[in-house]
């Protein structure tokens, strides 16, 4: 029984995987598939779904051991939406068939996922979305427009929320789908960002056909399923385990060490404050993960993401000031040239890019204002925002 596995057993299991699939001699994909099948993809997932039903925090043991052996990883920055959002939602709400079909290629990166949630008229107020899905025999026909869709240009599948009952109040008429991005009705167009790149897109859906077997959760339950996705998203953005000085703070600290000539007392004070906050945030993440070892992310993830966004922005801003003249240049990668990156990398490229990209951290995955509302209402129990649209049929609500 897997419940009896110890950390030492886990270590041996990883050693076994490495012995049978020499990472230097095995094809990358073959190695990743073997790793998934050995239950070492995400050890807190169930057996048969890439995991072993072990505590979440044991997973870092596996990553460390495999990294030391030079094993290939699944390029998490390329498939962040799949790993952080689609997978936990499919695990929580998917049928066994859906889990069997989608989780393995999602994890190995063979199939990239994107998130078709936001629309031009529905961002923070996601439940007001207008994309329609209409029953058609054993499937659904979807029409509408999505926007700010990261990775839509590389994605094979999407998690999609659409309105199936316009007569119901807005939160109750939604249904959650898994959408095939190769459907001829899916039209992906790049949207250029302030970094110069086009990491996100607008996506037009015209008579897209989705079989009912790709509905996730019950009809009309889309909001509940989407909330689970969003809670996971916040933990994924703000709560990933990091070593000390991982992430943005490490970049600034390295610059400080490399540039003694740039040091001033003002920068030093600000750096130390932010270093402390970043390290406290890291420890808070550790504590939250220990708490969540058994449970699912709740609204507390919103708190992590709030801090993450604020620190990323302050640190990257400080880094530019610290770099002085170098901070005036925007040269790494391909400068301002419009490219469509195949991965999302908050700490990639140079300091100028990091500063600009960090601006998105307080918008994507719920804006910091919305997250404060969530913390205030769902954690502290303060009254909800006054609203006029909660119990009115969606089609009659003021938008």
């Amino acid at each position: 029984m897997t419940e009896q596995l110890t950390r030492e057993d886990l270590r041996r299991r990883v050693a076994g995987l490495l012995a049978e699939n020499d990472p230097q001699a095995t094809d990358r994909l073959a190695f990743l598939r073997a790793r998934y099948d050995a239950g070492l993809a995400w050890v807190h997932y169930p057996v048969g779904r890439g995991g072993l039903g072990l505590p979440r925090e044991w997973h870092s043991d596996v990553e460390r051991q495999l990294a030391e052996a030079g094993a290939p990883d699944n390029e998490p920055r390329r498939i962040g939406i799949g790993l952080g959002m689609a997978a936990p939602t499919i695990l929580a709400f998917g049928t066994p068939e859906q889990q069997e079909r989608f989780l393995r290629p999602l994890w190995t990166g063979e199939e990239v996922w994107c998130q078709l949630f936001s629309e031009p008229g529905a961002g923070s107020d996601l439940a007001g979305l207008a994309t329609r899905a209409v029953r058609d025999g054993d499937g659904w026909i979807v029409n509408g427009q999505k926007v700010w869709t990261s990775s839509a240009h590389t994605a094979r599948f999407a998690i999609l929320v659409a309105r199936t009952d316009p007569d119901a109040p807005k939160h109750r008429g939604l249904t959650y789908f898994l959408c095939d991005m190769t459907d001829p009705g899916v039209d992906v167009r790049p949207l250029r960002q302030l970094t110069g790149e086009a990491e996100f897109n607008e996506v037009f859906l015209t008579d897209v056909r989705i079989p009912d077997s790709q509905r996730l959760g019950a009809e009309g339950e889309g909001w509940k399923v989407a909330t689970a996705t969003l809670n996971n998203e916040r933990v994924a953005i703000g709560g990933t385990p990091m070593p000390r000085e991982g992430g943005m703070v490490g970049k600034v600290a390295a610059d400080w060490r490399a540039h003694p000539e740039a040091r001033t007392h003002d920068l030093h004070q600000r750096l130390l404050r932010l270093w402390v906050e970043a390290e406290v945030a890291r420890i808070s993440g550790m504590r939250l993960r220990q708490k969540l070892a058994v449970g699912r992310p709740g609204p507390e993830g919103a708190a992590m993401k709030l801090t993450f966004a604020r620190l990323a922005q302050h640190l990257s801003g400080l880094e530019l000031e610290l770099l002085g003249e170098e901070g005036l240049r925007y040269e790494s990668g391909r400068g301002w040239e419009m490219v469509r990156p195949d991965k999302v990398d908050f700490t990639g490229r140079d300091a100028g890019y990091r500063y600009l990209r960090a601006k998105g951290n307080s918008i994507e995955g719920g804006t910091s204002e919305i997250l404060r509302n969530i913390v205030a209402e769902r954690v502290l129990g303060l009254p909800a925002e006054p609203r006029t649209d909660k119990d009115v049929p969606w089609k009659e609500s003021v938008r």
Partner: protein
Amino acid sequence: MSELNLLPTPDEDDLRSTVAGFLAKRCDTAAIRDMYDGDRSAAGPVWRGLAGELGLAALLVPEELGGAGASAREAAVVLEQVGGSVAPAPFLTSAVVATTVLLAADATDAARDLLRGLAAGERTAALAVPFSAGSGGAVPTMAAEGDRVSGQATSVAGALEADVLLVPVAADGGVAVLAVRAADATVVPVESLDMSRQLADLSLEGAAGEVVVPAGAGAAAIDRALLTGAGLLASEQVGVAAWCLLTTVAYLKERRQFGRVVGGFQALKHRLADLYVAVESANAAARYAAAALAADDADAELAVHLAASYCGDAAVQAAEEAVQLHGGIGMTWEHPAHLYLKRAKSAQIALGAAGAHRDAIGRLVDLPAPD
């Protein structure tokens, strides 16, 4: 390297409810308020209860000396409750700081005897240095001729409650620590910003002392004690901050203006959300420090400076928000918010100010100051 456990164990949860239950019954905010008007009658019974009845002064003392052989984790649990009720108890100064001095590896038999007395709740000790002194600095010392100690120490916390003072003394082989009976010193109460932890000025003139930490080992023993104190004070600060947050949220759920519950206004919801994040973060930092101290982890020193620099500010933020968001009533003598504000602001300065702890971090993690 296995990760430090930042969640309370079942035993720690039990301890928490025991202490919380005791303080809820026996530590009354009205009596603490009276301390500002010169009535210190609340202090004795609270400390006798915590140290004697509950045996909490014994936590850090090893079992062979009659102690509980517990660790910084348990002491942190107690301090969080002490902070949550601004209890006027010298737990931090006696059961943590003074006790840690006496636990130094080189401590004498006299130190061990004293530890037995502390563990039994029969004696109370205070380290005779200003409450603002932090680790890493030079400790102010007194002079000794033979076993006779003379000198002054100002703004000492826990001295009013103590029957024995631990005095750093400049000796030939370096700093020593001598135990002096409080009755042999002149102890003058100081009108303090925080009267629930009232300070005192000490003056010794040839008082008889007994060596508890020998010459040469004193500076390190005191440094360790001040470091441990700062790391655990963070838990007291978390208790203060958590009380302020909870009390303010509860009030704003009741208080109505403009025909609405005031807590429904988004400007306030957002401030409280930010405060929640700060308090939760402080909680994690304080637990990390306690866990690292308890495990004697290689990261303990950094963990302490981290918690000390973060939690002090968080407690002040929480207390200041509590006053502001209560409106006029928050400004009154009647409402307890000011007791927490005074505790928070004093604690922020105690055992090394936040900036000093950040400077120490800069040195520890190779982020040096400009030349």
